[in-house]
């Protein structure tokens, strides 16, 4: 009904040259194809941008997650180390050692309350290929295996390791280090030469 109101204005003859232009534009075969082509191209670009953004976002998240985990691990290690230093039940011992003619030292932070040890070795000679350093807990019942610290040629001359004192190990009164054959590093008693033996 009201659509007929479009007939209210007087008709106006468009410029004659418009006729060919309008008809050519309207009936251009590629007009639809071009429109769809543009739409398809836009869709491809949108998908590509979306995919790229998604990939970048995921890669960024993965990288940031890895960095966060690394920093968290480093922070935990720092807190652990500070715990040894600040712990009221921590005793510190330093013993000079000579290995293979080289003078070095071993520092031991022993937290008897938390039953955790932090051992730092410096300036020690690298182990022979078939040997390793073995740390021992000195207890009333004798020596108990604590940890293996292998120093290879390519490693830094400073090495630190933290470990727990197992529950089945009684009161620890001292520490010792020996050089053990690698194949026998899990032996219950020292077989090789002792590097040091001290009371805490």
């Amino acid at each position: 009904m009201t659509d007929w109101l479009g007939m209210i204005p007087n008709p106006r003859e468009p410029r004659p040259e418009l006729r060919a232009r309008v008809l050519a534009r309207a009936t251009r075969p590629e007009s639809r194809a071009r429109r769809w082509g543009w739409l398809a191209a836009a869709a491809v670009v949108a998908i590509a941008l979306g995919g790229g953004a998604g990939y970048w976002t995921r890669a960024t998240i993965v990288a940031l997650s890895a960095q966060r985990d690394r920093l968290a691990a480093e922070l935990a290690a720092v807190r652990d180390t500070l715990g040894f230093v600040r712990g009221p039940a921590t005793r510190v011992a330093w013993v000079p050692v000579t290995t293979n003619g080289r003078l070095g030292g071993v520092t031991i932070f022993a937290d008897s309350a938390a039953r955790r040890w932090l051992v730092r070795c410096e300036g020690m000679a690298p182990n022979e290929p078939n040997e390793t350093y073995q740390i021992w807990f000195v207890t009333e019942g004798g020596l108990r295996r604590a940890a293996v610290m292998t120093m290879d040629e390519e490693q830094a001359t400073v090495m630190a390791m933290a470990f727990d004192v197992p529950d089945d190990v009684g009161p620890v009164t001292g520490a010792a280090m020996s050089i053990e054959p690698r194949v026998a590093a899990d032996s219950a008693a020292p077989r090789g030469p002792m590097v040091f033996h001290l009371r805490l």
Partner: protein
Amino acid sequence: MAELYDALGPWVFGLASRILRDDAEAEEVLGDVFVQVWARIHQHEPSRGPLVPWVLSIARNRSLDALRRRRRWWRKADRWGAAQRLEDDGAVPVPDPAEAAVPGWPVHQEVHAALAALPADQRRVVLLAYFEGLTHSEIARRTGQPLGTVKTRLRIAHGKLAEALKHVKDWLR
């Protein structure tokens, strides 16, 4: 398509010119309308209405879209204002006899007659709604009439126009 353009081009251009008051923009709308008509001609179902109002509704919508996004309004403000002052009083546009040879002229006259039969206040709100695309609220502000009055006038006017034009058929063959 050429026949459709020859038959409806002047009406589309006339409608676009009336709404936009700018020949250059009206020519752009003219081209857009026929591109759209040709692209969607398969969507038009004769059972749901005649072809001419369908094409003219496309022309009106395109023109109103152009009117709304017009950036250069300030350059045309004078012409626009002058035209509005002439037509906002509800006066019926006067047909130009020189155009009488254009196909569809009898329908044009019938629609004019139906519009002229409306009271001036109803005619004015119909023209503001159709040719300027104003909402009911905008018409109320423009005319200084209450919103309810505008709605009532439009409803009554549309009813009268529907009754007066119900016999009008497509004049295209």
